[in-house]
């Protein structure tokens, strides 16, 4: 009897075979579930100290709240205020102008440095690379303090201008109504160029040398080779440099806080500075949050734009 039951049910046997298949998958599934134990610490930190506050800021942006009294619902009022208040939208315009100095010029400078450091250039390359990247590792607060002093009436910058016979235009640059923002922007150029250079150099190293040989055979000079081989070869890196430096320009706080604190006469205020001031000095949490959300939307908008432009040109 036992024999018969063992031999006859062939279909069941087959279904058991399928069962074996799922059985083989089950340890994998259990492993994929157990993987969450490894994922959990990171997810908990990220969710509770980044995602949750971010969502909360979004909620706060619809409130009128001074941080102490019970809040009242403001709807879109805080956002309307950003569009209408000149101080608020000017800060956004200032941040947009800073993109030129934090992002556009450094990308150009980075390309120039890459052109200079490439090819037969061997001796001293490591030294130049190390020094030119140095500004990028320093705390921006310290960079700001240093440049405050350089831009001072008796600072290095004016001393240099006098040396080359331009003594007539010396001034306290960060206090100049028209030029303070540009002076501030130039500090960004100083900080960001090294980062761009480093990215482009690492990209340029991956370009196939055969491309340069072919270009040489076609009679392309150094400049032409750079334009037709190197620049297209580091397109990916240019996109990334553009993204990183644009975020730095839009979200800049440290530099502005220590150099001008928004002055003179609000000529150098940026959204980040107003977020800080509104929330922690003036107790206008709702507007501060709405401005933080606006700033984030700008960052995401620009990152998307740069990515899309890069893809279209590719």
């Amino acid at each position, binding site marked *: 009897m036992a024999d018969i039951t063992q031999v006859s049910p062939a279909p069941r046997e087959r279904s058991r075979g399928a069962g074996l298949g799922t059985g083989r998958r089950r340890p994998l599934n259990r492993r994929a579930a157990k993987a969450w134990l490894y994922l959990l610490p990171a997810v908990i930190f990220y969710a509770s100290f980044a995602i949750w506050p971010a969502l909360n800021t979004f909620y706060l942006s619809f409130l009128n709240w001074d941080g102490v009294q019970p809040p009242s619902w403001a709807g879109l009022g805080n956002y309307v205020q950003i569009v209408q208040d000149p101080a608020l939208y000017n800060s956004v315009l200032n941040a947009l102008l800073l993109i030129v100095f934090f992002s556009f010029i450094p990308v150009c400078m980075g390309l120039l440095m890459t052109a200079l450091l490439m090819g037969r250039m061997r001796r001293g390359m490591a030294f130049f690379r190390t*020094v030119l990247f140095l500004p990028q590792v320093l705390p921006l607060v310290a960079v700001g303090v240093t440049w405050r002093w350089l831009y001072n009436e008796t600072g290095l910058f004016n001393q240099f201008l006098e040396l080359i016979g331009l003594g007539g235009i010396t001034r306290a640059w960060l206090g100049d109504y028209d030029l303070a923002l540009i002076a501030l922007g130039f500090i960004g150029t100083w900080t960001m160029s090294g980062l761009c250079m480093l990215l482009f150099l690492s990209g340029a190293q991956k370009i196939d040398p055969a491309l340069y040989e072919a270009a040489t055979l076609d009679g392309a000079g150094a400049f032409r080779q750079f334009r037709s081989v190197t620049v297209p070869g580091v397109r990916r890196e240019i996109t990334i440099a553009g993204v990183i430096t644009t975020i730095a320009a839009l979200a800049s706080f440290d530099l502005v806080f220590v150099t001008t604190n928004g002055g003179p006469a609000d000529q150098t205020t940026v959204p980040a500075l107003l977020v800080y001031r509104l929330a922690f000095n003036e107790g206008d949490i709702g507007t501060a949050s709405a401005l933080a959300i606006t700033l984030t939307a700008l960052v995401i908008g620009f990152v998307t734009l740069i990515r899309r432009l890069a893809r279209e040109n590719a």
Partner: protein
Amino acid sequence: MRTQTAGMSMRYLVLTVMTLMVLLPFASIVLAALHASGSTVSGMRLPENWHWENFALAWNEGGYSALMRSSFIISGAVVPLVVLCATLAGYALAILKAWGGRQVGIIFVLGLTLPVELIVIALYYNLSNVGLTNNYLGVIFAEVALFLPFGVYWMQSHFSSLPGELVEAGRIDGARDLSVLTRVLLPISWPAITTLAVLVFMWSWNQFLLVIVLMQDPEMRTAPGGLGFFVGQYSTNIPLLSAATIITIAPIVLVYIIFQRNFVSGLTQGAVKG
């Protein structure tokens, strides 16, 4: 041939000018720091007497004993926490293929673009509700959350770049998840981990906004946090301010010189993969 030499000299000339533009500001503040405290300094000028005591003065006036302690407490906790969490999460996403791992990975990557300003307001109120403002833990947890997107991404791409046979071989030898990680993968992952640690240390040391918001108590701020307010109080005392600046940047410059390779590979690969 002559044009080549001329071209090469031009290159060196332009590069030297650029290098000077980076180094002169440093030279300028070092010289300024050595003038008599409170004296007016103009541009680059050698001091008549070298006032090394300015560093001690700035250290005391700026309260750097407390600031440095805070800086090291915070970085000292943030770096291992980020490295640990990022390694475990990267392993779960790249090798163990956690359920929903793709989506989790994307949510982490999105965090790379979010500015600190987005979280800082609500974070302040959330943390003060649970008594974590003016508390090292608050800043530490916030920084961990802030740097984890890069960390997870970095470790995930590192683990995915390793040959799959390694893990297979480990499994065949009967290793469980944890021992595959510790015995097989970690020993060959130290370069990636060191680079992550160095970058996180830099970001943690340089972080300003989070620190000044979450630490209203000046005693508990970090070196850059303290310097930011030292400027306000001593804005006219250039020698002292310069000395304080040098004290603030010294540790990070030291780390940069020692771990130069890691900075370079981390920032280029990490950014490019992103």
